[in-house]
């Protein structure tokens, strides 16, 4: 536990010393948010209805995109530690082997939460409003954390196995685009049949719908369980392969 804390401090110092990582991660989703709100927002409003706050509507999808691009840096940090021999250094020291891995996972969670807070602030400036109670907010935070954790375990695998820095981060591109093929920006029912079937059954849709419902004080229905099942399921599968890759790291 103690060594996990020390190593977590080390990685957080990395992030604070290169704040561009947080800004770079936040800037693309923020740009996309601006584009959707100001370019497509008017058209969306006329099709979704005047009572819909489109800033609220698209925010969950933007958050998922931010997390998907944020975890690419988790993979890059791990790749760096592997290639620079830091794993060998730590793993030949009298500290728990798992503490090195957990330090990376905790750093990923913390860094992504900072990015998310930043995006919430920008959304607030654009007109995001929510009257959600404390429990709903806790649920929102919990789902975002679980989703980050799930994708972090996914990121550990290329972080440990990739042969190049680009290879370590390339896996995140399809994940970043996943929200476009979901209900994040337009209702899935407006899509052609095949795409709609994909959109309705991929994790981003259930997570986006649940977050949107929580923030808009609407009933979440069974969607929240589907969302949680996706997060836990992805975590469990990715964790298994991540641990297998970590055991092979020298």
């Amino acid at each position, binding site marked *: 536990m103690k*060594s996990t804390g*020390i*190593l977590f401090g*080390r990685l957080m*110092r*990395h992030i604070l*010393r*290169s704040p561009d990582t947080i800004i770079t991660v936040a800037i693309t989703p923020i740009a996309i948010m601006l584009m959707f709100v100001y370019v497509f927002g008017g058209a969306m409003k006329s099709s979704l209805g005047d009572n819909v706050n489109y800033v609220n509507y698209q925010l969950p999808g933007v958050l998922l995109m931010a997390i998907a691009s944020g975890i690419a840096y988790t993979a890059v940090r791990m790749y760096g530690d592997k290639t*620079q*021999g*830091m794993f*060998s*250094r*730590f*793993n*030949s*020291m*009298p*500290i728990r082997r798992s503490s090195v891995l957990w330090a990376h996972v905790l750093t990923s969670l913390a860094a992504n939460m900072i990015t998310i807070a930043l995006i919430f602030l920008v959304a607030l400036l654009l007109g995001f409003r929510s009257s959600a109670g404390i429990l709903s907010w806790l649920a929102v935070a919990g789902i975002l954390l679980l989703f980050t954790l799930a994708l972090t375990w996914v990121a550990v695998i290329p972080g440990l196995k990739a042969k190049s820095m680009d290879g370590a981060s390339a896996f995140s591109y399809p994940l970043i685009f996943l929200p476009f093929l979901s209900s994040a920006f337009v209702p899935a029912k407006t899509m052609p049949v095949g795409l709609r079937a994909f959109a309705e059954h991929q994790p981003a849709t259930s997570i986006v719908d649940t977050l949107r419902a929580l923030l808009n004080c609407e009933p979440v229905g069974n969607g929240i369980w589907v969302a949680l099942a996706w997060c836990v399921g992805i975590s469990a599968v990715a964790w298994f392969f991540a641990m297998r890759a970590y055991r092979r790291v*020298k």
Partner: protein
Amino acid sequence: MMENAISVKGLTKSFKDVEVLKGVDFEVRRGEIFALLGSNGAGKTTTVNILATLLRQSGGVASVCGFDVEKQPDEVRKSISMTGQFAAVDGILTGRENLILIARLRGVENPAKLADDLLDQFSLTDAANKRAATYSGGMARRLDIAMSLVGAPKVIFLDEPTTGLDPEGRQEVWKTIKALAKGGTTIMLTTQYLEEAEQLAGRIAILHDGRIIANGTLAELKKLFPPAKVEYVEKQPSLEEIFLAIIGQKESA
């Protein structure tokens, strides 16, 4: 009882169907500098990684400071420090912060004071508060070795400590290693530079094709070399010639 700092018997290691170590035996006495000499791919790094508990052997027994590397890895890790093939320093942290990080992980009392002492000992005080990424190759390697000294380990592994350094950097690191050995630390280093083994090591083992094919002091190794040339030429064989001769014999046998 514990005359040997490192003891290796019949060590084998295979990666899939490739047999890298085919039965390696050697011993390293306490306080000596021992060099494992061999060309690329001879199995030097594999041997060191097994001894440093980073890799499991396929067969044989290895112990460090009396602890079995397979059965008591935690005890082994408390006794050793490993400096890998590339300087494993955190480039984003300063030299001082790198040392403090390792000191805190090893639970050393007063990490800041230890860091300052080591920076001084390794002539890094002027660069103490600069990021390690800005260091020259020689400086980074010195910091790397300084980090390995934190917690005063009994045995230090140096895997190709001067690979990739310019001649000046190499001289700096050699000086450091010689100073370390005077302090009584057991040092096992691997190298592909014959001159390096000759310069530093009290004893040299030659690892070739997964086996130790010669082991002894430089003087002993020189005796192995049969003076085949005309007698009246006064020419001491260099270690390079010894090495090539032994390999040649093995391969033609």
